[in-house]
């Protein structure tokens, strides 16, 4: 199984809960033996999307910004069957560390329109049967932020081609072992490699 892991934790030390969640995801991925490309986004040079749509018109599939680290993400996404997003829940959404990379994945879509669940969306440039896992962390339990986060992941799943999505939110002082246990139970990860 090929997976892409977007590690959207803030720079080291700023958010131990989010770093712990990232370590738990990595451990479960390792136990499954998946071929994973993990991207430590806070440490990566990813510039802001320019909103120019060059990736759909002038150079289809290629972003106009070539002098940063985003291309490795596009390469990995093209062949991935599992997408994992990890982020501190930020105002009910994603932190900028994760979002800066997601804003730049427009090249993996086609410009045209299709209908999904009665709404307009874009077709995938690299169609594959994908699944999405979103892991959020919240320093304190907060039902409103968690609800908004879950709805947002649901919308992202539609935009990725109505993929099956799982959302997990860890809050408070959830331990590494507890996170690993909960993640390991998710059908998203399937059975442990023998």
């Amino acid at each position, binding site marked *: 199984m*090929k997976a892409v892991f977007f590690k959207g934790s803030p720079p080291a030390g700023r958010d131990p809960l989010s770093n712990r969640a990232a370590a738990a995801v990595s451990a479960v991925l390792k136990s499954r033996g998946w071929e994973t490309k993990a991207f430590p986004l806070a440490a990566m040079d990813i510039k802001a999307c320019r909103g120019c749509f060059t990736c759909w018109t002038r150079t289809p599939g290629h972003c106009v910004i070539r002098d940063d680290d985003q291309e490795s993400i596009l390469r990995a996404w093209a062949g991935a069957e599992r997408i994992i997003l990890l982020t501190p829940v930020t105002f009910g959404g994603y932190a900028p560390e994760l979002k800066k990379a997601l804003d730049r994945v427009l090249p993996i879509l086609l410009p045209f329109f299709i209908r999904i669940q009665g709404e307009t969306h874009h077709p995938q440039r690299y169609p594959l049967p994908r699944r999405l896992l979103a892991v959020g962390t919240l320093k304190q339990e907060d039902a409103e932020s968690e609800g908004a986060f879950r709805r*947002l992941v649901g919308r*992202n799943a539609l935009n990725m081609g109505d993929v099956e999505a799982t959302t997990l939110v860890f809050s408070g002082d959830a331990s590494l072992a507890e996170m690993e246990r909960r993640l390991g139970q998710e059908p998203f990860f399937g059975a442990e490699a023998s």
Partner: protein
Amino acid sequence: MSSRKVLLLVASPRGAASTSRSLGEHLLAGLEERGMALKTLQLYPALGDERKMSELLAAIELCDLLVLAFPLYVDQLPAPLIDLLRQVAERRNGQARTGQALAAIVNCGFPETAHCRPAADIVRLFAVQADFRFLGCLATGMGGAIGNRSLAKAGAIVRHQRKALDRAAAFLCESREIPADVVALMGRAMMPRWFYNFVADRGWKKAARKYGSSAKLFDRPYAGSEGA
């Protein structure tokens, strides 16, 4: 006459040519008529520019009403705007209420306004966490139909949006919440969905012809490459 200050923050990389700016400026005109003092700032030119960024953060602290105007990116706010809001919330952490108010205008490229719902959630939750009174989020789909035109120049297609922004101005200048019927009016379709989609599809093909890339529109440059 009120001398309350409104700051319009345009958070689109398309800056002066953005739909966000056209919508924001229309609202501002209504607020100016009602005696508010106006200021407009662009977020993107301040990225990586410490002086501009600190001016922007200072302006946010000084305004009575902050209006965020932004495009929907991947179902929510563009990354640089989330980054800015996180900075604002962190700087205010633990400070007493400021009495400032916040409203937002979001537009998206798909024809359905419903795509913008998570963005409305996010600005509301930001307002709560950063001690702004949240006065509402005006959202519209079909943003591509406005392009870089002012709403006056965009003609009859944006009549609902013009009216909604005019009516919203009357509430915002009194620091009152934008009523639900005004939010609904803002979200009304500018044209039939099939027509918007037809014109947009044709637009992509036309642009590709201009660049000589028509045969490449469906290219998969990373198929079969590393990780694929």
